[in-house]
Every structure is written in structure tokens, then in C-alpha cells.
């Protein structure tokens, strides 16, 4: 049995807004083991990024973690002070943000920006040590050494994204969160970056949390995955198991709405309607308004949402499992 690295237990997070509390993360629990890659998939606004931000506690000022625990190698992160958190961030958990390649400071050289992060965490390192470290990182992500002395505008999108990955690895984290790292890139570059991330992950034995709305990318990248809908995990388990034996209606719809270049050309199913507003308290199954065949019970909201075991390490929301 591999060592547990990150354990999230019943995490609840909401945003306080003028029109009420938006419950963005509801009772989310998952465990990530050493060297494992865990995928988080769902449509825009389902709470994927909110989960990632809660892990690092980088959420916006109006966001509050109301209950739950996040344990990193047994150490509780919820409730830590800002200065303690600063040590955890990057050192233990780092993140590749969505569109991060556009977040480089345009007037500072790439190498200097990465060195800044290392300096913050390893103040006793000499400049030469840090430069050696960056050289090493660049080698891992497939960048040439001289990129260090370039400005962001001199690099292509793919190169900038590689540099962002190098930055995320700069303080030897245990867990790396990749939040849609390839969304703005075209397919060939996406393919290269995905391979790079996979290679790095295996090489360094990292635990990876991969967030995407593209279920095809999740299939490529992860061994465990969770499907999120309206702030909750509706299905979680081994990726292969979920793809071959999806239990939740939403998972099935996601799978049936993804085009592929292999296999028989099939009619894709569209997912009509919109996710529910998270301001209101949702009674019962949050997916029932869009479910292709909801029962009366689902629609009335008399059933509670809870995950039940449907296979080895495979859990799905009870509502959908019971209606089939």
C-alpha cells in the first residue's frame, strides 16, 4: 500500500456574496497516494478550481472554509496561519494555474522569476546553487539553458508553459496541482506538454492533481479520478473503472459528449440545461433537472446526496446508482 500524501475530508467551502452564500465545494473527500495522479473533471463552475484553491488556501477574500480537513502527510492545513501556509505553499504543494503562461512578469527574465521563488524558500542557497537548480529543472521540462536569460515575450506559448512547470517544481513539492495547464494551447503543443508532465511526474515520483474539463485528457493523464458536479463529487474511483463502468448519469453524459478520432463515429449526446445556482440550498439530487430519466423521488429532492460503494475503490452518488 502506497503512502497517503494528501487527504481531504468532508471539505466545505463557500463564497460570501451580496446575494447570499455560494457553496462552491460541498462535502468533498478524496485521498491521494504517493506518485499517484488524480483527475478532477467537470464543467465550468462546478468547483474544480475552488477545490484546488482551498488546498493551497489561496482562495479569494470572500471565500471561507466552513468545515472539513486537509491533511498533507498527516499535517492539518486548515487553520494554519498565513506565515505557516507560506512555507507549505510551493514547498509542499505547488500549482500550475490555468493560463499561467500569461502570468509571467514581462519585464523580468524567466530565470530571475524562478530564482525569486527558490530564494524565498531556501534563503541560504547561493546564487550559483539556484542557477544550477534551474538548469536541472529546465533539463527535466525540455528547455534549453539559455531560456533563463530570456524575457517572457521571447518565448512561444509552449515554452512559457514548460517554464511554468519548471517554476512549479522549483521547491521540490510533494504535490503538484495542474489546473487546465493546456487549455490555451493547440493540440500538438498540448500533446507535448502532457507528455512532459507525465514524464516529470514519474521521474520525481510526484503526486499530481490534474484539473480539466476535457475527459479525454483525464483519461490520458490520471490513474484515479473524480467527477464533480455543482460543488460535489458525484463519482470517484480508478480512471479505467469509471470509463468502462460509469455509474452516474452525469459521468455517462460526459463520456458520451466527447468526440474521438478513433473507433466508430458515433452520434454524440449533448448535455442540455445549465448547472443549478449554488446560492440556493439544493434539496436532493443536484443533477436531477438535467438527468435524462429522473424518478419522482429525485425530482422531489427527498433523497440525500451521498456516495456509496459500487466497486473496488469506486464510489458514486447513491441517487443515480439506485435509479440505474
Amino acid at each position, binding site marked *: 500500500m502506497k503512502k497517503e500524501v494528501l487527504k481531504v475530508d468532508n471539505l466545505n467551502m463557500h463564497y460570501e456574496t451580496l446575494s447570499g452564500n455560494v457553496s462552491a465545494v460541498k462535502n468533498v473527500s478524496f485521498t491521494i497516494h504517493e506518485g499517484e495522479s488524480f483527475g478532477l473533471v467537470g464543467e465550468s463552475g462546478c468547483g474544480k478550481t475552488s477545490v484546488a484553491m482551498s488546498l493551497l488556501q489561496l482562495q479569494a477574500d470572500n471565500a471561507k472554509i466552513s468545515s472539513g480537513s486537509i491533511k498533507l502527510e498527516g499535517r492539518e492545513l486548515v487553520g494554519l496561519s498565513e506565515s505557516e501556509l507560506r512555507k507549505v505553499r510551493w514547498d509542499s504543494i505547488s500549482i500550475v494555474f490555468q493560463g499561467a503562461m500569461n502570468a509571467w512578469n514581462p519585464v523580468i527574465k524567466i530565470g530571475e522569476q524562478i530564482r525569486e521563488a527558490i530564494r524565498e524558500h531556501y534563503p541560504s542557497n547561493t546564487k550559483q546553487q539556484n542557477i544550477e537548480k534551474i538548469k536541472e529543472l529546465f533539463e527535466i521540462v525540455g528547455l534549453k539553458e539559455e531560456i533563463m536569460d530570456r524575457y517572457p515575450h521571447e518565448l512561444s506559448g509552449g515554452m512559457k508553459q514548460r517554464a511554468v512547470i519548471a517554476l512549479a517544481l522549483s521547491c521540490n513539492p510533494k504535490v503538484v496541482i495542474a489546473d487546465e495547464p493546456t487549455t490555451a494551447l493547440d493540440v500538438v503543443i498540448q500533446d507535448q506538454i502532457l507528455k512532459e508532465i507525465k514524464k516529470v511526474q514519474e521521474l520525481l515520483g510526484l503526486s499530481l492533481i490534474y484539473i480539466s474539463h476535457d475527459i479525454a485528457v483525464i483519461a490520458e493523464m490520471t490513474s484515479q479520478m473524480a467527477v464533480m458536479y455543482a460543488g460535489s463529487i458525484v463519482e470517484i474511483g480508478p*480512471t479505467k473503472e469509471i470509463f468502462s463502468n460509469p455509474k452516474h448519469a452525469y459521468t455517462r453524459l460526459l463520456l458520451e459528449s*466527447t*468526440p474521438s478520432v478513433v473507433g466508430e463515429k458515433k452520434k454524440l449526446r449533448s448535455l442540455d440545461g445549465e448547472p443549478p445556482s449554488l446560492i440556493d440550498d439544493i434539496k436532493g439530487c443536484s443533477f436531477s433537472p438535467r438527468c435524462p430519466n429522473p424518478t419522482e423521488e429525485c425530482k422531489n429532492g427527498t433523497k440525500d446526496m451521498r456516495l456509496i460503494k459500487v466497486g473496488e475503490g469506486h464510489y458514486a452518488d447513491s441517487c443515480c446508482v439506485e435509479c440505474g
Partner: protein
Amino acid sequence: MKQNLVEVKNLEKYFETSGGLLSRKKNVVKAVDDISFNIPVGESLGLVGQSGCGKTTTARALCLLDPKTNGDIKFLNRETNLLESIDNLDGEELKKFRRNIQMIFQDPYESLNPRWTIKDIILEPLNIHNIGSLSDRDDAVVEILKTVGLTPPENYLPRYPHELSGGQRQRVSIARTLIMKPKFVVCDEPTSMLDVSIRISIMDLMLNLAKDLEVSYLYITHDLAVARYMCNTIAVMFNGKIVEIAETEELLSNPIHPYTKRLISSIPIPDPSYERKVYDLNYDELDSIIAKDTEKKGMVDIGNQHYVATHDVKGLL
């Protein structure tokens, strides 16, 4: 054999760039270099390739948004039923041409005027082309909103783009395009900014409209999986040239050109037990081979309406 709606022959579009400050030398970027294709009435062609390969430049030249450098573009004239060159259109004829050819853009957040209501946005082309009486126009707007699935229309007419979701905005773009009853629509990655859940509904909407209204699409995308769903034929572009063109399933099952193979192999497969083939392609090498091939022998037919560029790429993969 269906009649062609669009015929493009040896289209070229070059951009001149200066060799640097104070330099007299001019460099030429061949954004689109000698490409040819046909699109039959009611069918769709997918233009697939990496960013910067010239897909959008081709589309803009086709819509007369940018002047082409060389080549012929012919368009079917509905009245005479003949293919006519669009080179020397002006005045009324140009206006008529523009009515028949429309564009849907990639980003529904940027392509709609934020200070106009949905009604104004969809009404604009009718006003510009002065089609129908004022009350006819209002009816047409209501009708087209129903067609694209924004119902009830009265809820949408007075709203502004920022009040709509990405999918709804893209439906507005489609409505604005289709209200002119065009025969040919150029779609520049219309679903790449949309979420998975709404992507299919927009694609299905476009497919149904193509069937009902006999619209042809030139569908630009970098995602072959999307192109497969939308198009009868796919043309693969690399550095301004079409390197392979064939009927969709033929192209995917029997790719010949190394670049096509590379492109197909880079699409993630939504199946964790599927092992993708790994192709590593040296782009610089491919680029120099293509650059050396200056004779412009065009493409060779290998049967099944499957054409591959003639430059020698053996042993590249």
C-alpha cells in the same frame, strides 16, 4: 456528383515584413502558399492545423476581408448556376456576395458588441443590407432566435451580451450569421472557447441548420475530433500549405503525410485503456523539405479522392 459551391485554386497570401529598423530588405511571409480545394453545395470542409499555419488567413481571403496575393476563388452564383470569380466584385454585386458568405468567430465574448442588446446585434445585418420592412425584420429576429434555441425570444431580445453565458452568446453569433440566409459560413473555431457540455449542443445545432438550410461550412479547428464530427472532408494545413486532403473517415483511417499522422496521434483519446501511437516529427526538417519543394507540383491523387502533397517526406517518421 454534387455541384461545387466554392472552388479555390492556387490561393496565395503573402505578407511583407520589414527586415528591421533602417533596413531596406523586405521579408515575405507566405502565410497561405498555393492551396486549392473545393466545397460542394451543402457539404462541409474542415481546415485543420496548428496555430499559425494559415487557417484563419485562408478564411479571411475567402471572405474578401483581406486581399489575396494570387489565385482564383470562385463562388456559385445562384441565379446563373455558374461558378463565378469573386475578384472584381464591386458595388451591388459585392454586397450580394457578402450576403451569401458569413463568418462565425472563435470568441463569443469578444465578437458581440457589449453595448448593444441582442436584438440590435441580430438586426444589424438586416439593416445594413436593407432587407424587408422594419416589422418583417423584427419578426425575422424572433424567428431566428427560436431556430437557434434561445426561447422564449422575448426574454433574450432586450438583454445585453454580458447577461448571457458563453454558449448562449455563441448561439447569438450563429443567429446573427444565419439571419442573412447565407449559403456559405466560415466558422473559425466556434466551439473552442466553450465548455464540453455546451460544445456538442452548438455543434449539433450547426449540423442541423446545415441540413435544413443547405448551408456549407468551412470549419476551422485544431482539433481533429471536432472536425471529424462536423465535416465531410478534412484538409490538413502545415505552414501555409495543404499537405493532405481527403474524405474524413478516409483521412483518419489512412493518413499518409507524416504531419497528418502526427496531428492524429496528438489527440487525446477518451479511453484510458487505449494506447496512442507515438510519432515524433522533426518540424524543422519537414519545414525545410517543404521549403525546398519550389516547383509547386501540387498534390497527387492516391485514389478515393485522397490527395497528398508531392514533396518527398519518406523516412521522416
